[in-house]
């Protein structure tokens, strides 16, 4: 039983990370119908920025808590800025283009950002300081759950709730929902589409940055390639849960994380990815729009 619980905890941890990144994918897709392949790279840039700021602050001698807060804040701001810029440069000019062009642009952007960080920094794995301190009250449980896992779970839950509040109860949230439903109509009723899209990218990128910082603290190292792998997994999670649906992204992330964890624990770690993708195919066969996706009726 304990084994099961531990696997479950591992799955939830993984799933939370996937969820944080998947939220960005799903929001962008819901608004402009684009699979933002560069999103994984934003996650990576968030982690790198946090590392750089944290290192600078450590050498300047700041105390632990302020390093955590400052580095995270700066990383989130920068990721948001990157997301905003990527949208303006690579996607905005292609809004009226055929569907696949922004996709290729996204792939190109992803390659560009990866190599940009590779060249500007280094190809080596960089150790990431453990920004999440080891809480004393966790000590007796340390062999089951660590403080970083706890922080990851709590943060994801908090973020999910904040996001839902934002979407449901604020003006900008309403504008986002309107744009997702019908872009031209939203324009007609006075919604500033450009601003809404930028805000979407900013929020999505911030979430990815938070995910990046959490994972980097948890795992302890980063390198320029982590965005690509995490991105594919997160994208799978977003589709699994129904792309365009926010609770779907979180659910998809958790389902994917748990599947991988249980597959490793009970079958074999060799095939954990095969299990994950097979699960995806199966779910999509029976629910072609994802678990929580709404199958849009196409009007003729």
């Amino acid at each position, binding site marked *: 039983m304990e*084994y099961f619980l*531990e*696997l479950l*905890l*591992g*799955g939830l*941890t*993984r799933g939370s*990370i*996937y969820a944080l990144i998947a939220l960005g994918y799903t929001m962008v897709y819901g608004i402009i119908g684009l699979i933002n392949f560069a999103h994984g790279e934003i996650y990576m840039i968030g982690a790198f920025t946090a590392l750089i700021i944290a290192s600078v602050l450590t050498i300047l001698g700041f105390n632990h808590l302020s390093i955590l807060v400052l580095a995270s804040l700066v990383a989130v701001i920068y990721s948001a800025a990157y997301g905003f810029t990527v949208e303006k440069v690579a996607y905005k000019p292609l809004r009226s283009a055929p569907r696949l062009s922004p996709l290729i642009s996204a792939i190109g952007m992803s390659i560009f950002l990866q190599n940009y960080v*590779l060249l500007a920094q280094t*190809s*080596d*794995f*960089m*150790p990431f300081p453990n920004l999440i301190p080891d809480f004393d009250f966790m000590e007796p449980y*340390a*062999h*089951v759950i*660590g403080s970083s*896992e706890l922080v990851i779970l709590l943060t994801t839950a908090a973020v999910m709730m904040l996001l839902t509040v934002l979407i449901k109860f604020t003006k900008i949230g309403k504008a986002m929902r309107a744009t997702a439903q019908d872009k031209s109509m939203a324009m007609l009723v006075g919604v500033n589409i450009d601003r809404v899209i930028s805000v979407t990218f900013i929020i999505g990128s911030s979430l990815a940055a938070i995910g990046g910082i959490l*994972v980097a603290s*948890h*795992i*302890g*190292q980063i*390198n*320029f*390639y*982590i965005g690509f*792998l*995490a991105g594919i*997994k997160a994208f799978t999670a977003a589709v699994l849960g129904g792309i365009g649906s926010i609770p779907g992204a979180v659910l998809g992330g958790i389902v994917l*994380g748990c599947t*991988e*964890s*249980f597959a*490793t*624990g009970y079958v*074999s*770690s*060799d095939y*954990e*990815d095969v299990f994950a993708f097979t699960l995806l195919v199966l779910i999509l066969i029976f629910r072609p729009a994802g678990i929580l996706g709404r199958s849009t009726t196409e009007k003729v």
Partner: protein
Amino acid sequence: MKSFVKLIVILSIMVIGVFSSRLGSASDTTIKLGVAGAHSGDLASYGIPTVRAAKFVVKDINEKGGILGKKVELLIEDDVCKPEMATNTATKLISEGVHLVVGHICSGATKAAMGIYNNSNIIAMSPSATNPDLTHSGDYPNFYRTIASDDAQARLEVDFALDILKLKKIAVIHDKQDYGKGLAEFAKNFLEKSGRAEVVLYEGITAGAVDYSAIVQKIKRSKADGIIYGGYHPEASKIVMQMRKKRMKTIFISDDGVKDDTFLKVAGKYAEGVYATGPKDVSTNTIAVAATEAHRKEYGKEPGAFYLNAYAATQALLNAIQKSGSINYADLSKALKTEYVETPLGSISFDDKGDAIGVGFSMYQVQNGVYVEVK
């Protein structure tokens, strides 16, 4: 008309680009030494030290007047550790008239390139390709290396685990890649053959995952008292960290992909007590000291992976030309197998299959934050 002009411009750029790469055709007034490996991309840190080592050796030799009266010329080509690029690189080197090659770096790329070198009777010596097939299978008679092969490492790890640490239940983990999996397979086979310990787990992890708690839990459940890990330091440090955070005291034994300073820095305090095999300690070897010093002076930091191995490889190849007096394949092969050459790794020669004699592995342990050789 404008698009026509554009087309002509593009075509001419292409033609110029193509022709400029044709300049520098083969001339027999120099000895051409090719250096092939990953010089860009994510595995560049494994290939660049080799280039630097070759440069130092060649500079020294040229200052002393070259070999057989000819200067040595370096032809440096990048293969990004991909087999298909490696075949292109090998073809390019051959079409430029290369005589000998130091490379390639990754076993897969080396295998791909060897077929091409074989055809043209070119000898290649790798400082880092450890896949046993390259020498044991006999398919690559023109291949040599200045590093011990994987099965020797696995042998050492298994013997250490059984004889010295007296482990009874061992989990064998790998990273599903060529190097790690190969090592793990050998380790598993040796363990099973010996019958003195039980392989309670044999699994591969996905490199680059966001969390390894599942495999760590599995290891815990298998009640293994030791882990033999085949793979590189990033994944090793992640697993060790998660294990120690979960208060597991399992002994961790790994390979020379983990015996790296980066591992120590990344894993920090969690690295304490980890065992890893690595090339025999050569810090007292005068040539090694000089080579490392030269690198420090020129580049301002410690040399990277396989630097000394590459230094030795370049010396061995050039020495073979010197001693045999020719660049003929048969003469060189004989010279390599019969002559000894003084290198940073000691006095080495090569056996029939191409493996280096005099290059071995020892076991190291992390004590107080540094790797210490365990006698």
